[in-house]
């Protein structure tokens, strides 16, 4: 069963490697923020050192690629409903969940690599972060990738309309970005904003990321984020796998 998921993963990864340039485009935007936006934040962060600013901003920028990259993953599967690839796979001897799982794993993998590149660039700019903390952050990114990817595939399979899909993704991405405090911690804002943010899963990921990058491994935000993301991943992956049934009518 899981062998089929790894077969699909391998197939997808080989596809990615044939065109490795596109995922690199995905990190241009967050890197631009790191270069041109971080210097503006010196006065907002206690201490104000380059490292402290980057520790605050980098986790947000990593989650930005999760939102604006992985959320669009569904477009590929929409294409596969149209050229018959999905139809053929469904009547093959494949373990059906592997069709979605293999792809989601590919997206998570791509996201982890992008995130690792961003950490590397941020470190070159002066960020100081321990190996364990960086690895935990990458694990959190992988889960974010699973969540965003499976949400995107589920939406794509259910909607099957590129225009509607891009509208919905944009509609979701913008408020999620703002209310998560991707650029500046929500704790700087008024209380009502902090209350609203508690309903946004991304908020917990950003907060956990900031705790990690500050080196505060004991922070409660970290287990909180992992627990929440595990639960949400189970939900969205199950939903997207079940959505495959709808294709058959």
């Amino acid at each position, binding site marked *: 069963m899981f062998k089929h998921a790894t077969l699909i993963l391998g197939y997808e990864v080989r596809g990615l490697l044939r065109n490795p340039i596109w995922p690199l485009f995905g990190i241009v935007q967050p890197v631009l923020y790191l270069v041109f936006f971080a210097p503006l934040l010196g006065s907002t962060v206690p201490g104000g050192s380059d490292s402290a600013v980057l520790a605050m901003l980098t986790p947000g920028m990593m989650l930005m690629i999760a939102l604006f990259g992985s959320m669009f993953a569904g477009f590929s599967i929409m294409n596969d409903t149209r050229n*018959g690839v999905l139809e053929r796979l469904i009547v093959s001897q*494949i373990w059906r969940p592997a069709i979605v799982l293999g792809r989601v794993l590919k997206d998570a993998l791509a996201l982890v690599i992008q995130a690792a590149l961003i950490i590397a660039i941020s470190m070159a700019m002066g960020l100081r972060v321990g190996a364990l903390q960086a690895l935990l952050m990458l694990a959190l990114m992988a889960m974010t990738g699973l969540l965003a990817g499976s949400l995107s595939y589920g939406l794509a399979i259910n909607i099957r309309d590129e225009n509607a899909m891009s509208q919905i993704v944009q509609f979701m991405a913008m408020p999620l970005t703002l209310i998560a405090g991707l650029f500046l911690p929500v704790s700087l804002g008024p209380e009502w904003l902090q209350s609203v943010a508690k309903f946004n899963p991304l908020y917990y990921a950003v907060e956990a990321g900031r705790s990690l990058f500050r080196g505060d491994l004991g922070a409660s935000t970290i287990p909180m984020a992992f627990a929440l993301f595990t639960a949400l991943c189970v939900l969205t992956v199950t939903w997207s796998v079940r959505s495959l049934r709808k294709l058959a009518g």
Partner: protein
Amino acid sequence: MIIEAHELRKTFVVGRGRGKAREIEAVRGIDMEVERGEVFAVLGPNGAGKTTTVRMLATFTQPTAGQARVNGYDVVKEAGKVRASIGYVGQLGGVDEMTPAIENLMLAGRLAGMSKKQAKARAEELMAAFALTEIGNRPARTLSGGQKRRFAIAVGLVTAPPLIFLDEPTTGLDPQNRANLWEEVRKLRDQGTSVLLTTHYLDEADALCDRLVIVDHGKVVVEGTPEALKKEVAGDIVTVRLADGPAEGLEQARLLLTAEPYVREVVQEDELLRAYLDDGERGLPSVLRALDRDGLAIQSITLERATLDDVFLKHTGRSLRDAA
């Protein structure tokens, strides 16, 4: 029997959740039996329910009612075993455009449980058989329509299944590629693979299949071998166009020809009369004499062999060309 279907039905509900759900009866009770080793065609106009029928037999779509067994397995209760027995080449092809075509073949093999080596060997074998070896490493989007279709069929054959479904295999192909594809289908039959193909081309069904069903509006209209079906209509058809004003002359000619003993049936189609004869070569002079005797001037007269279109016309009251 490789396929036995009984009273298969499929009703789709469209516009659900918007207040006014509407039911579409795509298939309204289809029975068919396909023998092992047969090339069997489902012929019918667009929208007749051909694709839905194939999708139900291939376990893609669940039937609303009725039963079907493929290779002895129930398509609903034993779908996994059915999938292991079939190759499925949908109308859309199912070849990933961005990927080298050989990758599609390899993945299909691996998913069926082959090792990497076995999958590679099988892929190469199929590419050689379908004259695709040289283009196997090109992304599928760079291939021509005919090449893509051959690849799609090769992917369907990776597991060497006893039965392959080909849904409209030649739609959109030029005559040369169509002829090539017909050759491939004949080779499949020679190797003992059962083939179920759908088509809306009369000549394709006529040229390729051992037996066929004609479907229309989700039901089987008639079933048999192409020869038997055509014979049932008549051996030949004489089509007459009169020179003079249409109405009375045509009616007079129709009555006249109907009365001739060697004429089986006369059908009027616009300004044409189609007389069905068992033996057109012998009958034609008599038709000419009979019309001449009554002073009816002929503008043109043609003699044709009966086609499956005549079978369709007889059973549905309209021509397949108009039915789409």
